[in-house]
């Protein structure tokens, strides 16, 4: 009977150790994930400070490269509005 109890105790200890290790691994994964998120947020903050300026620069460059005209922009907006209008 005592032997069986000891065996059970050992099994329980082994299980709890395994669970603890798994938990540690999960925590490790969680921390890595969290750090990644912080890094991403930090990246967002960096972008945030000049996002409209960066977008304006890229779009103006595109307009120059492609000789984009105001009529073409009006046409694009008109097509989108017509498409959306037909949806409603």
């Amino acid at each position, binding site marked *: 009977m005592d032997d069986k109890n000891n065996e059970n105790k050992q099994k329980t200890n082994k299980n709890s150790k395994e669970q603890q290790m798994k938990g540690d691994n999960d925590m490790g994964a969680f921390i890595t994930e969290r750090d990644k998120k912080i890094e991403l947020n930090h990246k*967002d903050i960096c*972008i*945030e*400070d*000049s*996002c*409209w*300026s*960066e*977008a*304006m620069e*890229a*779009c*103006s460059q*595109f*307009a120059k490269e*492609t000789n*984009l005209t*105001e009529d*073409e*922009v*009006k*046409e*694009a*907006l008109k*097509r*989108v*509005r017509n*498409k*959306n*209008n037909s949806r*409603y």
Partner: protein
Amino acid sequence: MLETKIIVDTNIIINGLFFSNKYPYDVELLKMIEKKSVNLIISTDIDKEIRDTVMMIAKIKKYSLDKFDEKIYCKINNCLNLATKVFPRIKTNYSKHSLDNKFIDAVIESGSSYLISNNIDLTEITDNIQDMYNFKICSPFQFKLFVASKNVRIKFNKK
């Protein structure tokens, strides 16, 4: 001034982005948004219209969509993601053109103080309606003047 909520018409954002040399007041407005001097509010419908128009421009110019996505769209996406989103519960019918009503709906839902547009149909919306919801429809140039004048700002920020 960040508490000053503004709704901006699609063509002002598009012109400010693509023709920054020709539309200094539109650019100035975008810079104010960037500096967080004002709070840009967009609804899902407005957001969709801006994104669709930008993609349509690439399509009209027969530009490689992958290249466009990587070089330009991702930057516009960052800007739009930073704007405050609203989901209007009331659909109004104040403008002659049904698609312009989404701007009014966003104003009402967010309690914005200004709707910035050059669209004549929108600027024709009566003072009564503007007074009822406590907002002002103005061009980017007029908005600049409003901002410059503290008295006017206080008047329209009664809420």
